[in-house]
């Protein structure tokens, strides 16, 4: 069923330009992500890293003005957000939305069933979904009580981020985009969230971590690190690049980039 061969990346972004209203935010992003890889996108505030993740997931606030993104052989940017999700793209929100009155169970089952239908599979029975959810709740070490409540309603910041990881675990994406999932987490929550991400890593899926800080990368070891500045990737490297950034700050990159 999959159109991917070993030679093709899971995600290939070329010359991506995007704007919000009159504001150009992405100015030609190139990025290739292979199955089995973890990429970290780092950069100062306003560099466009969250925009990149959101554009790939289809957030309607942005307009793509040029470039393309091929995911699993498909023109990702031509697809509605829900189709992207059903094809295995997942965005962990920087600010997860509270859904008063929407039970987590119902919400997650609808997502799982939408994806299954897209792939020509039957909806899960309530019993099978119960089992799946229980298993994932244990996997990501989330308080089972949170699943019984309305989605994110009255959750603390850390609980919301954990809940994003639970959703990711349940939906089993092939391409997970984590938008500053580490921000606002205390050290315990950061460990739990990171453990969840690590447990979900496999040779078939890929993760793109968008982060301002290096500290999450102590827990999730990336294969590649990219630095985004003014809407373009100005430098790529291995995990050591993250440490260098932590040490020297983003000004160093900015200066280095201006000479290139």
């Amino acid at each position, binding site marked *: 069923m999959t159109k991917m061969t070993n030679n093709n990346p899971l995600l290939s972004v070329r010359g991506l330009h995007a704007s919000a209203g009159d504001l150009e935010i992405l100015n030609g992003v190139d990025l290739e992500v292979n199955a089995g890889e973890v990429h970290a996108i780092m950069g100062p505030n306003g560099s466009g890293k969250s925009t990149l993740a959101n554009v790939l997931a289809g957030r309607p606030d942005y307009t793509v003005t040029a470039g393309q993104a091929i995911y699993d052989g498909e023109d990702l940017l031509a697809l*509605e*957000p829900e189709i992207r999700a059903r094809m295995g793209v997942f965005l962990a929100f920087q600010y997860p939305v509270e*859904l008063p009155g929407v039970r987590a169970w119902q919400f997650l089952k609808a997502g799982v069933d939408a994806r299954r239908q897209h792939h020509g599979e039957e909806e899960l029975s309530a019993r099978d979904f119960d089992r799946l959810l229980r298993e994932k709740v244990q996997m990501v070490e989330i308080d089972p009580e949170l699943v019984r409540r309305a989605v994110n309603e009255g959750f603390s910041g850390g609980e919301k981020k954990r809940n994003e990881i639970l959703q990711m675990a349940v939906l089993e994406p092939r391409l997970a985009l984590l938008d500053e999932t580490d921000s606002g987490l205390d050290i315990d929550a950061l460990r739990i969230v990171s453990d969840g991400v690590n447990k979900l890593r496999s040779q078939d899926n890929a993760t793109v971590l968008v982060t301002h800080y290096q500290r999450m990368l102590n827990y999730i070891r990336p294969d590649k690190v990219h630095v985004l500045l003014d809407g373009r990737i100005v430098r790529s490297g291995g995990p050591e690049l993250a440490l260098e950034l932590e040490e020297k700050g983003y000004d160093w990159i900015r200066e280095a980039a201006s000479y290139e």
Partner: protein
Amino acid sequence: MTQAPTRHERYFADHQALAAASPGPAWLDTLRAAGWERFNAIGFPTARRGNERWKYTAVAPIARVNFAYPFLPPDNVGGPEPDFGFAAVSAAADFDGETGDAIRQHLGRLASFEDDGFAALNTAFLRDVAVVRVPDGSGAPVAVRVNHAATDGPDVEQRYARHPRTLILAGRNANLTVIETYTGPPGPRYFTNAVTEIVVSEGAQVDHYRLLNESPAAYHVGVTRVHQARDSSFSSASFALGTALARNDFAVTLDGPGAYCSLNGLYYTGQGQHIDNLISIDHAQPHCTSRLNYKGILDGNSRAVFGGEVLVRRNAQKSDAQQTDKNLLLSEDAEVDSKPSLLIYADDVQCSHGATAGQIDAQTLFYLRSRGLDLAAASRMLISAFAREIVNTVKPQPLRDYLDSLFDRNIAVKTLPVGR
């Protein structure tokens, strides 16, 4: 008897025919006649001359039709509604029977028709009265339902008005649940002119559910008057599916220290429909608590009016009152006029009010879509979640399940505008 000239000849003729066909005890005949006189004097309300109570709702569609009284048997307790496992109360009250004295004592006492043409008209046509009465000191739970079902009248060309009346008397320490439903055939533009009076005695607890599930083309004017004594508790949830014109005039008087009321409402209106909720709470005594929470879902070019009037009188210290009205607009053409108001004359009180009207938030919609739900599924999930807050206040499980599916079924999601 009344022989004053009238602009309402059809109503007058029917009123007289009713008095002749269904003569009651003298007190009832007198009450009917007084209702007619008042209606004939003041007629239907108009929005002119600063009539704040009818500022946003024109009753001309009702006033200009000569609705006839159908003279059908009163006992329409069956109806299409499920019974929710509750015993039915007939609308054929026996005015001479055992409870006759109680009826005489209370009927028309709370629902004053001095300034209310609709209540006056209802009183002029007093016949179909459903009486629910729990005597003093009987604390055993009582659960009943009253279904005022409109049926097609004898002449298919004629348009009919019915004037259902409900009298609920909860004695001291009573524990009473009442489901009051209004139903009717889907087609005709009939008019339901309902009045309900509820007496909640000291220490009594009453759960009251009111469901408007009439023809989408019907007119419905409902007046509900509640009087609460010391340490009583009154919880109400009013549900309304859209009709051409609906008015829910609901007033509670907290008339004894320690009284508590919780008034919840959920309304849905579609293309061409109009609903007007006027909810009044009178904190007449100290140490009372009131909660008012109404929610509306508006589609098409429909319009909703919400007036919340909380009055805290000067002696009503330690009053605690909250009111909110939230509206979800499914269409660019829908309109809501929400006017929550507080009139506070005491100085040691806790009161708050708020109103919102808006479309489904774009960020929220994207969150659901990013999990694989398409626009229609996401919208449905969010709309039913919005409604569920009110549906969840319903305690009897069969009624809650019924309302859940009733609103899910009736709320159409055609095109959903996305607010930013």
